[in-house]
């Protein structure tokens, strides 16, 4: 009989699935919203218990999903890293919904709101399953779920540009899933397994005997490329700005902050549990990931500089931040992976905060999105202005904010590798570029425009929008606090990540 607490990851996954089914029958959007918030909170609490249990006990455990042990049946595996990630994902999911609540109920028709929450619950389920899975095919199934649900989140705000963005997103997403599936099929036919531990043994054996070298390489490439396309790795990022920039506020926050990370976590699991870091480095896949990551950091920022639409600017900034995460993976060392995991957490808190604040600032400026029309908007909702400032400073990498710590860890991780000079220079360049578009944005929202310009913008604002938004402010405070925690008390968190990578 296993300890009861080991059931909690399974409970949290099923809670989200059941809530997804249940919200389809709830008539009122408000009720569905509260159910979803409740599920996010419950899942955060459950996974926090698991985190405490696995970290203090310094252990990871495998939980069979059914009566049959691996390699015969499905299984999930849980260690400190997975528990930490799922706790943060659940919390941020709930916070993003709360912060974008007002926009959400305005942008989506009342009779379709419950369907939106079906999608949100299923995305939560798929994030949890992608993080916990110990079975490569379960990974694929939940990739599909998150593909459909993510596209639906974009198209829920039903206007022309969003539909086109959704179609692009759907196509690119399906290309990604297809590549992943082909890679997985090839891997299965040369190893005969789907469960990660058995796959790992078989891959180890293939490496020793040298059989099927080409299919193994192709499979590594396809799986990496597939997950790369889905998480907007640099040359495959063109779908992202339209999809994330046009969606309703809560959708942008969830998609940019969380959904992209689910695929990266699965890639991390495949690399660490199945292929092993040595194989990735040996095959040269690490160098390719590194190159794409570095290019993404620069070109994402350059594209963001040219944007004057605030949400598209943030979306391009996501491309750059995803570049950081891939750079850490591409270094091919455990330190690099730790830095990447930490950056996943930082970005998961930072980007939703920025999107929520941008949504709120544009709501108090008559839903204008261009920086020019957002002048002085920070004074109309000071909370949103401060939140945006904190998020932007963290993105630039100012000490005491979360982003600084992850840059520090990336720089540290690059020291023992052969890529030190290039990596450090890219980090420096990317920091300057980040500052070059975040500082003008900050100036724009904090500098008061001439009176007649402000009056012109204010003419478009509904009186209701200027009223104090409690749910948003609560979300704002929570995420700002999270960024400071990540920036100041980072040692316990990196300890958990290091233990998690060791026990993965």
């Amino acid at each position, binding site marked *: 009989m296993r300890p009861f607490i080991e059931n909690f990851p399974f409970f949290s996954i099923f809670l989200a699935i059941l809530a997804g089914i249940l919200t389809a029958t709830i008539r009122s959007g408000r009720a569905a919203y509260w159910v979803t918030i409740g599920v996010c909170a419950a899942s955060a609490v459950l996974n926090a218990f698991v985190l405490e249990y696995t970290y203090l006990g310094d252990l990871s455990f495998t939980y069979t999903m059914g009566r049959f042990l691996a390699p015969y049946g499905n299984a999930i595996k849980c260690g400190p890293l997975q528990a930490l990630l799922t706790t943060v994902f659940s919390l941020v999911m709930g916070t993003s919904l709360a912060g974008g609540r007002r926009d959400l109920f305005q942008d989506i028709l009342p009779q379709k709101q419950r369907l939106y929450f079906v999608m949100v619950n299923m995305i939560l389920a798929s994030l949890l399953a992608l993080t916990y899975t110990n079975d490569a095919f379960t990974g694929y199934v939940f990739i599909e779920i998150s593909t*459909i649900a993510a596209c639906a989140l974009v198209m829920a705000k039903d206007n022309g540009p969003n539909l086109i963005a959704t179609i692009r997103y759907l196509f690119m997403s399906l290309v990604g899933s297809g590549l992943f599936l082909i890679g997985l099929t090839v891997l299965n036919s040369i190893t005969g397994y789907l469960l990660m531990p058995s796959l790992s043994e078989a891959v180890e054996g293939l490496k020793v005997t040298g059989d099927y070298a080409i299919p193994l390489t192709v499979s590594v490439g396809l799986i990496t490329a597939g997950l790369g396309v889905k998480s907007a790795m640099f040359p495959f990022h063109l779908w992202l700005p339209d999809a994330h920039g046009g969606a309703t506020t809560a959708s942008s926050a969830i998609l940019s902050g969380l959904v992209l990370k689910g695929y990266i976590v699965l890639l991390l699991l495949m690399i660490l549990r199945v292929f092993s870091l040595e194989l990735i480095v040996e095959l040269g896949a690490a160098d390719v990931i590194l190159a794409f990551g570095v290019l993404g950091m620069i070109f994402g920022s350059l594209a963001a500089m040219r944007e004057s639409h605030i949400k598209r600017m943030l979306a391009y900034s996501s491309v750059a931040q995803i570049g950081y995460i891939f750079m850490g993976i591409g270094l091919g060392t455990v330190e690099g992976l730790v830095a990447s995991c930490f950056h996943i957490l930082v970005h998961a808190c930072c980007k939703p905060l920025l999107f929520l604040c941008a949504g709120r600032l544009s709501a108090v400026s008559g839903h204008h999105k261009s920086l020019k029309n957002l002048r002085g908007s920070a004074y109309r909702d000071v909370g949103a202005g401060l939140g945006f400032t904190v998020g932007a400073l963290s993105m630039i990498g100012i000490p005491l904010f979360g982003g600084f710590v992850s840059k520090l860890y990336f720089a540290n991780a690059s020291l023992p590798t052969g890529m030190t000079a290039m990596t450090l220079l890219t980090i420096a360049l990317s920091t300057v570029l980040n500052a070059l578009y975040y500082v003008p944005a900050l100036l724009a929202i904090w500098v008061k425009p001439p009176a007649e310009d402000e009056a012109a913008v204010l003419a478009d604002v509904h009186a209701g929008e200027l009223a104090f938004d409690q749910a948003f402010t609560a979300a704002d405070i929570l995420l700002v606090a999270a960024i400071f925690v990540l920036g100041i008390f980072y040692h316990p968190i990196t300890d958990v990540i290091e233990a998690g990578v060791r026990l993965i």
Partner: protein
Amino acid sequence: MSKKIDETSGWLQRFAAWVDGDREPPDRTLLVMERRPHRDFRPTEEEFERREKDRLRKFFNWYPIAATVICVVMAAILLTTVMNMPGFGDEDNPINNEVSERYLEHGAEETGSENVVTAMIIGYRGFDTLGESCVLFLAVAAVMILLLRDEKNTTGRELHQLEREEAGAREHADLILQQVAKVLTPFIFLFAIYVLLNGETSPGGGFSGGTILGAGVILFSAAFGVQRTQRFMNRRTYSVVRTFGLMLYAVLYGIYIFIGANGLPNHLAGMILLIDLAVGLVVACTMYGFYALFSRGEI
């Protein structure tokens, strides 16, 4: 700040405007974002159209070349892979290992299902199948978000036209279709139920049975029109059946996982039959839902 800034002003002014956040660079996104009218400078309609056409022409010149190159490279990679993969059906292939052996030899006694495919997808790897059922459920929900009639995506004229078409179809009913459907539909339903219930012991199961059931409902609806279908399948029954199916699967399989993982005694002997039924309901609802939503925008 309201100074006019365009491509011809000096770099210093442009830089200052950019630091101020005043810049409004030309919108270079391809085909997608909504275009805001430009504040200061606006190309004439013809010029704008000409530029747009130019860009499209350039895009379409390069697109086939790039696509061909990518496809050829991809095909070459995949063909090389296939040539180096284990041959089809060889005895000593890596996939002929203890996993498939156990599925084939102990599947029946361990899961209680004679049909190995059912044993595998519902017994051994039921969590994946639950995920797949969720995919179907979500697909219908996503299509509902997109196509279900609402004030945004339908005009009064479209509604009116739809009503006229339906009235026309009622008056001039297709006799051949109706007679054939009258004979066939009961047999299709009967066969669907047979496949659903016998998924454990013979080829078939939830996915195939559900597809047949859905096809039967679609045939009935196509032959006899919406009104007569809605007598037994209106929106309310539809959503009840659909959520009931998936809920049944999730709850049953949740209990099964809890029992299995904690090593408790297993009392769920008839589970596979019920899960097959649940999957069948979900699949049938997905089929009919797609048909109804795409053809009429409502269920």
